[in-house]
């Protein structure tokens, strides 16, 4: 009787991401270079396993291909984790929060004379005796937390934004920087490993060395990138900050996030806690009438713990047009079914009912 269709939040998220596996996988829109990365790694390793490993296993040691396989699997695992996970996207402000922030800005700016440009929206905070400017994001309608930045390719604010990497098809931010670094590191090791045994093979069999050349060029770029990120980690900086020269030292500006100790900086970035995603992708949305939405007809299994309490809220194909509920229902929105559900007064906050709208004095 109820429609089996369930709309999950990822279908309505703003921003230019693509989602797969019903919201579990999150990537950028352009994935072509990512497929190239996967093809290059898999192809090179396939050639290595196919042409060189049989000889090396027999004449040197069977451990050589075994270790190569393990390394290859590790590289693919961290690559997929980097590409498919949420980099630390900050959800956009809901209307009430956006209004609240606007009011605060207006109160802070005071009265701007007509014709004059209002001052830029900046908030100053002091972090470890350093003044850091928090910028306002006009797209997301929030003041960006320190170290966050807006990625124009994905159209999201990302926490501890490092850079947008087309090779992994995703932004690199707080949640997946560690995996990105391990990817570059393990890929460097894999490339060096293959390169070394290529040379050994060539020397032992006196064969042509064209394959060695390809490895040589890949090696330098990947090893160079790993070295660069090792430097950034030891200084507790992001690529974004490095490019902009935020903590370059001019005007006695120093990095307030650095512990001034290489070991501590590395530990914080690599061994810190794994942050959870704050972007709700798999939450179930209350069904709006089909006329206004273009929800894709996915045959997802109906979620048992939906927030719907009364059946008529969910129109299906057979509900006549005139009995479809309107969106702005006040009491229904604030009485969810499950006991641990907080009121989702998100999209259409219930208006105060007329009898409370009295011009009474303030308390």
């Amino acid at each position, binding site marked *: 009787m109820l429609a089996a269709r369930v709309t999950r939040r990822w279908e309505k998220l703003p921003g230019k991401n693509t989602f797969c596996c019903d919201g579990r996988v999150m990537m950028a829109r352009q994935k072509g270079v990512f497929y190239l990365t996967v093809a290059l790694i898999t192809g090179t390793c396939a050639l290595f396993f196919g042409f060189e490993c049989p000889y090396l296993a027999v004449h040197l040691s069977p451990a050589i291909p075994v270790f190569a396989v393990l390394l290859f*699997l590790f590289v693919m695992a961290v690559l997929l984790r980097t590409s498919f996970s949420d980099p630390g996207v900050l959800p956009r402000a809901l209307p009430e929060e956006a209004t609240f922030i606007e009011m605060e800005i207006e109160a802070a700016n005071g009265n701007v004379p007509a014709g004059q440009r209002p001052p830029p929206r900046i908030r100053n905070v002091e972090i470890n005796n350093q003044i850091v400017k928090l910028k306002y994001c006009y797209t997301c309608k929030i003041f960006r937390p320190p170290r966050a930045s807006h990625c124009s390719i994905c159209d999201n604010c990302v926490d501890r934004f490092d850079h947008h990497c087309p090779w992994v098809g995703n932004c690199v931010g707080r949640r997946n920087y560690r995996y990105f670094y391990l990817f570059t590191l393990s890929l460097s090791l894999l490339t060096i490993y293959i390169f070394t045994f290529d040379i050994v093979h060539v020397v032992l069999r006196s064969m042509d060395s064209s394959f060695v050349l390809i490895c040589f060029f890949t090696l330098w770029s990947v090893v160079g990138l790993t070295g660069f990120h090792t430097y950034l980690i030891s200084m507790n900086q992001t690529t974004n900050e490095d490019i902009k020269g935020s903590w370059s030292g001019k005007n006695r500006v120093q990095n307030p996030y650095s512990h001034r100790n290489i070991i501590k900086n590395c530990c914080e970035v690599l061994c810190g806690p794994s942050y959870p995603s*704050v972007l709700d992708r798999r939450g179930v949305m209350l069904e709006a009438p089909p006329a206004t939405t273009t929800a894709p007809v996915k045959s997802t299994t109906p979620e048992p713990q939906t927030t719907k309490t009364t059946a008529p809220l969910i129109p299906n194909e057979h509900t006549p047009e005139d009995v479809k509920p309107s969106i702005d229902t006040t009491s229904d929105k604030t009485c969810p079914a499950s006991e641990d559900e907080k009121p989702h007064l998100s999209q259409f906050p219930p208006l105060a009912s007329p009898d409370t709208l009295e011009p009474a004095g303030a308390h």
Partner: protein
Amino acid sequence: MATEFHNLQELRHSASLATKVFIQRDYTEGTVCKFQTKFPAELDSRIERSLFEDTVKTLNNYYAEAEKIGGQSYLEGCLACATAYVIFLCMETRYEKVLKKISKYIQEQNEKIYAPRGLLITDPIERGMRVIEISVFEDRGSSGSSSGSSSTSSSSGR
């Protein structure tokens, strides 16, 4: 004037939303998750300052515990790295465990302290860990209570 509500369910059914107060993050110690304990003026007549500050301080302690970089986080990180992070598909991270505790704590606070005063705290994770949203409700039935629009206009005229 304190409006009486008996429990959370009654709050949701019989009250109408007057305004929302947003407690911002406190970045003075860096990017760790910490909220400001400054008491907002809109809650002045609704709840005692000490109760509010206790709630925020306890939440800050929970978040500090979740983000602590120490023996347990190293162990978790190294173990996860050794398994190429496949273990995260079946294991819950420490942060997620603490978030569950936070969620329970907020629900308990809502039931015991905030709902009887016509307030409701939203878990920060639902707002991207940016703000603690406190919804201020007015009883629909009572006609003598101050209106939502007047409290909103009083806050903008500050």
